[in-house]
Structure formats: C-alpha cells, structure tokens
C-alpha cells in the first residue's frame, strides 16, 4: 500500500463522455430488432393478432396496395394537400415572423395574437373552415396552413432576434441600406433557426393532414387509415401508419439536405 502511494502511477483519465458522437447503423438495428421481435411474437402466439398485426402481413398489404395502384390514389391527394397547405402556412409564417423580428409595432401587435392562436387545437376549427372554405380541398388547405403558420412565425422571429447584433451594427457602420442589411445580414443569419423551425412545422402539417382527411375525404392516407380502423383491419391501419412515418422521415431528410446545401458555412 505504502509503495503504491510513493511510486509513479499514471493519472487516471476522467475527461470522457458528455459528447454525442454519430454512430451509424444503430438506428436501423434497433428498428429491425423490434420488427423481428414482433414478427416472432405474433408467429409464436404470445402476441395475439388482435393486439398487433404481423409485420410481414403489413408489408404484404403495402405491396398489394402499391400493385393495385390504390397507393398512388391515396398518396396523390394527401401530398397535394400537404404541399399546398404547408407552402401557404410556411411562407406566410416566415413573412410575418420576419416582420415581427424587424418592426416593433408589428411585434407588439401580432405576438399576443400568435400566442393566442398557437394553443388552439386547429382540428377543432375544421367545422368552421368547412363553412368558410368549403367541404372540398379549401378547408383542408386552410387547416394545414394555419397549423404550420403559428410554429413557423414563432421560430422565425426567434431566429431573427438571435441574429448577431454586431453584424447588423457592422452593416450600419459601412452605410449599407436598410434593405441590404435585411437581405444580406438578417435573413441569412436567421436561416438556421428558420430551417430548424420548419422541421417542427412540417411534422405538425402531417398530423393535421391526417386529421383533416379523417373528417371528410374519399381518398388520402387519413381516409385510408380511418376506413381500416373502423373495420378493425390492423394490417391496413399499420400500412397507413408506415406511410405516414416514411413521409415524416422524408420531409425531415429533405430539410436536412437543404440545411447541408445552404448552411455549408456552419461548422
């Protein structure tokens, strides 16, 4: 014991951890393991087929759906609604968010309004929207637009607020015009925050898409899931859910690509 205290000994390393590193493939492995577990459980019988459908059956349903051409019949209107609705909501949201970030009067006037709109479950307004915009596509566009609008506004004006003020001061000190400062300093500086807010907004858009289609649509992923649910057809229900998940992953991936392209200057 005593010579252990006196002799040279290496300093114990205690600095690791607390730093996330990207590990490839683990996500896929978890996913596959979970599916394999359910597949095994449903085949062995310790998961009853009333609890969960067999993953292979869901896959077969998806393939059949694709082969019959019905997949596209349901996807096309859903994608259109999502695209039109969120395009309207997001562009209006970015516009209003930037205005709030730039003008004190707009901020004072609109921030409380946005705070009041944000927590309303937009789906509760659907009957109202049906009256305002008609039972057809109009009310669905409006629902998705309003649902993506509020989170986009909040994240956009937050992003504009976070733009480095010393850069704005620099622009003024070189006599740049107001419009140049907005276009060349404020907007690019706010872009990272706007894009990460877009991930949330588009996910909300997908949720509202399904909700809107459940309330009144012949075709669409939401209608498909609702039909399957009322017949307790778990395979089709889960096939619909899988399509939604894939849609979510795809939009998130697309935003990731846009970030990679437009934010190359970040570390």
């Amino acid at each position, binding site marked *: 014991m005593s010579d252990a205290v006196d002799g040279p000994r290496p300093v114990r390393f205690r600095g690791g951890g607390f730093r996330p590193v990207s590990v490839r493939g683990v996500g896929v492995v978890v996913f596959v393991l979970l599916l394999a577990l359910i597949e095994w459980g449903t085949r062995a019988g310790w998961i009853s087929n009333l609890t969960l459908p067999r993953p292979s059956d869901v896959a077969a349903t998806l393939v059949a759906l694709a082969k019959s051409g019905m997949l596209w019949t349901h996807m096309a209107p859903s994608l259109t609604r999502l695209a039109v609705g969120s395009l309207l909501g997001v562009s209006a949201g970015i516009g209003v968010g930037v205005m709030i970030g730039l003008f004190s009067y707009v901020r004072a006037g609109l921030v409380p309004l946005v705070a009041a709109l944000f927590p309303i479950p937009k789906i509760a307004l659907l009957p109202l929207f049906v009256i305002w915009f008609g039972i057809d596509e109009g009310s669905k566009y409006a629902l998705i637009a309003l649902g993506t609008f509020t989170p986009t506004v909040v994240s956009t004006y937050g992003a504009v607020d976070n733009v480095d003020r010393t850069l704005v001061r620099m*622009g003024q000190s070189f006599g740049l015009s107001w419009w140049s400062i907005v276009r060349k300093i404020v907007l690019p*500086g706010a872009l990272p925050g706007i894009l990460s807010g877009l991930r949330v907004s588009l996910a909300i858009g997908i949720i509202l898409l399904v909700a809107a289609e459940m309330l009144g649509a012949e075709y669409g992923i939401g209608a498909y899931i609702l039909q399957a649910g009322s017949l307790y057809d778990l395979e089709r229900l889960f096939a619909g859910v899988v399509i939604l998940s894939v849609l979510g992953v795809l939009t998130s991936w697309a935003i990731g690509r846009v970030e990679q392209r437009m934010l190359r200057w970040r570390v």
Partner: protein
Amino acid sequence: MDLTLDHITHRYGGMAVLDDIVLDIPAGEILCVIGPSGCGKSTLLRMIGGLEQPDAGRVLQRGPVPEDCLNPLTYVFQDFALLPWRTVAGNVSLVLEDHGLPRARSAQIIADVLARTRLTDFHDALPRQLSGGMKQRVAIARALAVNPAVLLLDEPLSALDSQTRELLMEDLVALWARQPFTGVYVTHNLAEAVRLGHRIAVLSRRPGRLRDVVEIDIPLPERRAGMPELEALQTRLWDLMKEEAMAADQELLHV
C-alpha cells in the same frame, strides 16, 4: 478630413459615462485612446462614427472628404464582425455592393485590398477556416476597400494572442507607412498605444474625462517592441492610469 470632438458628454440612465471630452483629430495621424475598463472609450468611438448619439456636444468633420471615398468613417471591430456565410472576398464585396460600382472595378478593389493585407491566397476561404489574426486582416481589408477618410479601430487586437498581435501591429504600421490614414485607436493595451499612436489620449475612470494627451515624436516605422523610449513612456502612462484602473476594478458594475 479632420475630426473635432466638441464637449462630448454622455450618460447611461443616471450615470455619467463621458464628461466634457474635447479633442482634435488631425488628418493623417493616429490617435490612441486609453483608459481603465468602463471609462467609456468604446462609447466615444461609437459616437465618432455615428453609431451612438452623445447627450451633449457634437462630433464635427472638417475639410473635404477625399474623392472615391465610399464610407468616410469606417470601423474595425474587436470581434471582427465578418459574415460567416460569405467568403473572404464576399465579405469585402459586401461593403462595395451598395455603391453600384462596375463589376470590374469592385473586383479590382477586392484584389487590391486582399493583396495589401496578404490575403490573396484566401480569396475563397470561409471565415471559420481562418485563424483569429487572419479574420482581423479580412476585417481590415474590408475597411480599406471603402477607402476611408478615418479608420475607427475598437480594440482590434484584443481578441488575439500576443504573437498574432505583434504581427498585426507590424501590418498596421506598414499599411500606414504606405498610405498614411487618419485613425482613432481605442485600446486598453499600453504597448499597442505607444507603438501605434502619434498621440495618446488618456481617459480617467467613470465618468470618463480627458486626463492627458501624450505626444510621441518617434516615427511609426522606427518603433520596435522593447525600445527604451517606448518602455519609459509606457511606464509613465501606467503611472497615470494605475490608481484609476485599481479604483475602476473595485467598482460595482451597473451596466
């Protein structure tokens, strides 16, 4: 173009920051402003460039602005203030774009200022790829691009390590020797002040008053680190400031 500070007084809230500052800044000369932290020297510099307004007093410009000068009063900031999404050339071009210069003319200006700051090889680099010293050279290149009548330098070397600071000081002296510019150089570093200042204005602690203006006759290019004359001067300045700096250190911050 000469500048005159005409009885500048300023307060933040109820607290006096600057008290009756009167100073002349003749063309072609670098004036260093030193003082303990919180004495309002950066505030004074922001007033000179029109980024802040004094409560009383005026900053006056006298004499004609040189031709082809795009931005008479031009800053170099302590934290560089480069746009991280623009390349080195893009950051310089930012300050030219609003002036409607022909494309060839701006390209020529950019190439010229990058050459003068030895950055030609880094034309397309992004700020995050550059060291602190290079970033500040980009900021200096950007300031030179508008051909300023007066350069306002706000602790430009304070964010850099001492070796880089020495190198950049030599760069600044070389730039001045090549084409003398008017400069107001705010710093808390006495070594920088005695190396770069033709005159050194010493401010007292809050409220900042002008305590003394020290002139240095040695031409800028002949000054070297560790010259006995400069060392003596630095000691003298430190004696002027020491008690103030100690007292300033003991003050509670109200900002």
